[in-house]
């Protein structure tokens, strides 16, 4: 599936360089370095507590890091408002628990960001919203409230909500792990289509069939460290570390 040719001269869309994060004395990220190029699809896996969530949340500044540097499009993130703007313009995020706004309709969920942050007119925002609702295949749900939808539909709305900000990269934090089994595929399908259309993605997931299908790069984490990182073929054929082998074996049994 990895047919995208990466341009060598442009800076990576995301670069993390020696990033460390602490909660008090407890170090949860240990000198993390990684690059994500435009169009690249990266899947991160690893056992619970490995700091997968923390890692991707550092990229869109939901968590702060104490050491190292994070760059978006070659610009280093700090706590200035221009950094916040850079994140907002480039990075979309989909959460495990959807985090839709329950008091707003699906359409309002989608248009709030474009209207307030991108200064779209209401009509323009609605056009964009309907376009992305069609992309996630639920335009007919536009006027319902989130609680009237199934989990799978809610997560697709959440994906559309992120897409309405037209980000360059989408972050997914276990987007299917709160879903009933019969709804997982409809979400993975939408994500695969996004990937096929060239969206850059970092996805934390344990859905290995999905990973095999879309990932260019696989990352295996444990205890706040990246233990293994490489092209998807090599990762699945011949994982190097014992811990990674054991982990893959364990999750693929199910």
């Amino acid at each position: 599936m990895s047919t995208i040719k990466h341009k060598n001269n442009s800076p990576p869309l995301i670069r993390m360089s020696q990033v460390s994060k602490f909660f008090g004395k407890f170090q949860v990220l240990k000198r993390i370095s990684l690059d994500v190029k435009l169009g690249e699809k990266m899947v991160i896996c690893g056992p619970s507590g490995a700091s997968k969530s923390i890692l991707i949340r550092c990229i869109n500044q939901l968590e702060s890091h104490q050491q190292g540097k994070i760059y978006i499009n070659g610009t280093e993130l700090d706590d200035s408002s221009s950094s916040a703007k850079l994140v907002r313009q480039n990075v979309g995020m989909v959460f495990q628990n959807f985090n839709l706004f329950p008091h707003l309709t699906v359409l309002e969920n989608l248009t709030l960001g474009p209207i307030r942050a991108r200064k779209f007119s209401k009509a323009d925002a609605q056009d964009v919203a309907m376009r992305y609702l069609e992309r996630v295949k639920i335009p007919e749900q536009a006027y319902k409230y989130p609680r009237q939808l199934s989990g799978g539909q809610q997560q697709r709305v959440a994906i559309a909500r992120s897409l309405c900000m037209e980000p360059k990269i989408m972050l997914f934090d276990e987007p299917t792990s709160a879903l009933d089994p019969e709804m997982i595929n409809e979400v993975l399908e939408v994500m695969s289509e996004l990937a096929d259309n060239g969206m850059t993605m970092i996805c934390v997931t344990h859905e290995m069939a999905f990973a095999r299908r879309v990932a260019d790069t696989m990352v295996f984490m444990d205890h706040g460290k990246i233990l293994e990182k490489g092209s998807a073929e090599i990762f699945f054929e011949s994982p190097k570390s014992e811990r990674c082998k054991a982990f893959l074996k364990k999750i693929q049994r199910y």
Partner: protein
Amino acid sequence: MWVHRKFVGFSKVRIICLIIAVLLLSGCSDQWGWYVVNPSTESGRDNLYFLLSGFYYTILLSLTAISISIITGLLIALLGLSDNKFLRTVNRTYVEIVRSVPVLVLILWVYYGLPQLADIQINVFWAGVLALALSDSAFEAEIFRAGVQSVNKGQYEAAKSVGLSYLDTMRYVILPQAVRRILPALGNQLVYMLKMSSLVSVIGMPELTRKANELVVVEYRSLEIYTILVLEYLVLILIVSSAVRWLERRWKN
């Protein structure tokens, strides 16, 4: 749930009808002198009108005061929710001080004390509004703080991830959810406010209680007149609380 609510509504109405019936019947006995408010006599009508006209200031005073206290309470709550330790301390200090002072004392202090302190003129109405709003704002602040804190942390993260500023996040995402949850508490505060407004009678505000006091001085029929006063508050507050419940039900959807 539905059956329960219906039952409560029924019994409340029945109890009130019972009270009114007892009062009307008791007017026939020798000790009671319902003639003071007998609508079929000219003086009774005048007295009744005099008492009822107190509604105007009771309602105006309470609504003005609660509007002000909701706004100040919200601002004070936002201080308490801030990351800044100094602002949180300001919030705690304000809430603790204001909550510790009895409303009546606040009314006296604002009306008699404040003009000397600040060298300003303040009329009875605004002194009452200020004192009631001040007192209530501490409670509103605590209600708003609890309401905002009850909203899931994921909502802030989602709002941030679609690029909303802090103020937009509060305005469009957090407060609408918080207000729905605290509506019953806000309704209770309005009921308290209506009742507390009777204290402003001590500085001469012609609201329900003051009017009743004035009429008692003229007519010497305290039992009947104060009974009317009780009924006035009862009716007012029952109407307000059912309106709040109606709103609450509507907002649930």
